[in-house]
């Protein structure tokens, strides 16, 4: 019954930006959004968070870079990316033509690198809605992790970038810390519009037959349904303490998963590993979310946020 679905309202707001729906695709799991037009209508998505961009292009790590694990996978791509100059020249013009929102994910090894990248993007006209700051990539030596595990560094980076852009500033948090809430609070107090949680969980996979580690860098980032409970905890804890919106990430493959994250406190969610299996899965998740809302008494997706009942 089409008329019923028209009653559902999937719109969500972060800062002063509104998104048509809360289903986004996560950085590093959807390329630059231009790879598979035959398989997915990107304009249906709430937003695309593009693959991490560094100041210079990066080759990434030697293979093997990925391995499947129980209900998940471990990756160690090593931030392979085209670099900010090519991003500005080749991709920003393409993004002008999309109706979905583009969130640019930025990674750096020191504050100066993040600043340079953002200043370069801010210096040109573009349609991007904002930035997600990768302070938590586990796969790069001297990578963003040192920011993501330290409250002071997180605050300093957030504050510096806040001074450069009026666009959305989203800090992406690592689960590989002792207290994710204190990092989130540091980001909030320093002016972030939102936090996204979680990045991948550090993991390892070993081949018993060969005695070899399955990933070149030995450790990698675990993602997929295996980490959903970890992501839900992070979102739920952050929601108790933060006032800015939280974007939930970790093992979302269905409309039910998206609802669970929103009940835990997420304003929006990002679909990650599931894109590797089915690039169009987010469109299905949007439809499923609509159906779930229709079947319940809550027609407004945003009404779900943080309403989980606990014992």
């Amino acid at each position, binding site marked *: 019954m089409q008329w019923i679905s028209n009653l559902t309202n999937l719109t969500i707001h972060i800062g002063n930006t509104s998104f048509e729906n809360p289903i986004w695709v996560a950085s590093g799991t959807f390329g630059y959004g231009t790879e*598979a037009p035959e398989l997915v209508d990107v304009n249906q998505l709430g937003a695309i968070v593009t693959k991490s961009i560094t100041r210079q292009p990066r080759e990434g790590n030697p293979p093997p870079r*990925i391995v499947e694990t129980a209900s998940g996978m471990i990756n160690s791509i090593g931030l392979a990316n085209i670099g900010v100059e090519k991003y500005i020249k080749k991709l920003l013009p393409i993004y002008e033509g999309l109706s979905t929102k583009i969130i640019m994910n930025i990674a750096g090894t020191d504050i100066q690198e993040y600043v340079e990248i953002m200043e370069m993007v801010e210096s040109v006209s573009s349609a991007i809605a904002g930035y997600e700051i990768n302070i938590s990539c586990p796969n790069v030596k001297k990578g963003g992790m040192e920011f993501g595990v330290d409250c002071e560094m997180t605050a300093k980076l957030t504050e510096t970038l806040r001074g450069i852009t009026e666009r959305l500033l989203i800090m992406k948090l690592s689960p590989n810390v002792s207290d994710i809430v204190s990092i989130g609070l540091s980001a909030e107090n320093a002016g972030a519009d939102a936090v996204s949680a979680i990045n991948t969980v550090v993991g390892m996979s070993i081949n018993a037959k060969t005695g070899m580690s399955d990933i070149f860098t030995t450790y990698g980032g675990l993602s997929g349904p295996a980490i959903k409970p970890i992501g839900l905890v992070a979102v739920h804890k952050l929601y108790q303490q933060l006032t800015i919106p939280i974007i939930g990430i970790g093992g979302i493959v269905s409309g039910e998963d998206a609802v669970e994250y929103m009940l835990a406190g997420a304003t929006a969610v990002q679909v990650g590993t599931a894109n*590797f299996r089915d690039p169009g899965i987010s469109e299905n998740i949007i439809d499923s979310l609509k159906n779930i809302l229709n079947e319940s008494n809550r027609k407004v997706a945003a009404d779900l946020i943080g309403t989980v009942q606990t014992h």
Partner: protein
Amino acid sequence: MIIERARIKSNRPLAHEIWEMQFEAPNIAREYMGSGQFINILTVDDWNHPLRRPMSIASSEDGFVSIIYKIFGNMTRELTQKKSGETLDLLGPLGNIFSKWDNGSYPILIGGGVGLAPILNLKKACDDNKIEYTMIIGARSGNEHFISHEPEKNIYLTTDDGSMGEKGTVMVPLQRLVEINKNAFIFACGPEPMLRAVKEFAINNDIQAQLSVESYMGCGIGFCQGCVIQRKISKIQTHSYHEKYSLVCMDGPIYNAMDIKFD
């Protein structure tokens, strides 16, 4: 590339732990370009195993595509349980194709282990185009072979244990046959040690060779950037982000032997 829910037409063992599965997949068959391309199969619908499995297309005609797969782990063992009439979710066709096999040189087709499918596919293309060739298929033992050792038809089998065909690896007949066919062009698919040997042999003897390489894949469409192989020259990449690595799923899986490095 298309995602298609394909009906299984047949699923049967060909030899010890080697199976063939045929799908009714008209959309993938329509887009199929040639030997070397692969499909990415979702072997289970639950999320215990999130990733698809890449399988080279062994044949494609009249709306059907087939694969030949070796039982390797739980997922491939699960595939053997599928019955005709059931459906599987396929993504494809993906990747590039063997080329120049019809350019007047003498193709030597080499397959080993799991690398049989694209080689048998190319054999059929040669047959259909009345192109003469030699084919060498290697296995550990005779029970893994499902075609006949017929040197008179230029089809040679090898086994590590000597139980069928010639004893040794595919390199044994290859070295001899190249002597006879000065205009040889090698097309090979198989386990990495075999490809390394073929590559080294081809380069040392100044013979052109195209290799179909394997890589652990996350998606097959360039999203994950996981399935890289190191390359020697810069012109073979179009989908990876830089020069050092090439994406096997989109720039490959077929490479000129001299363009890639296995280390």
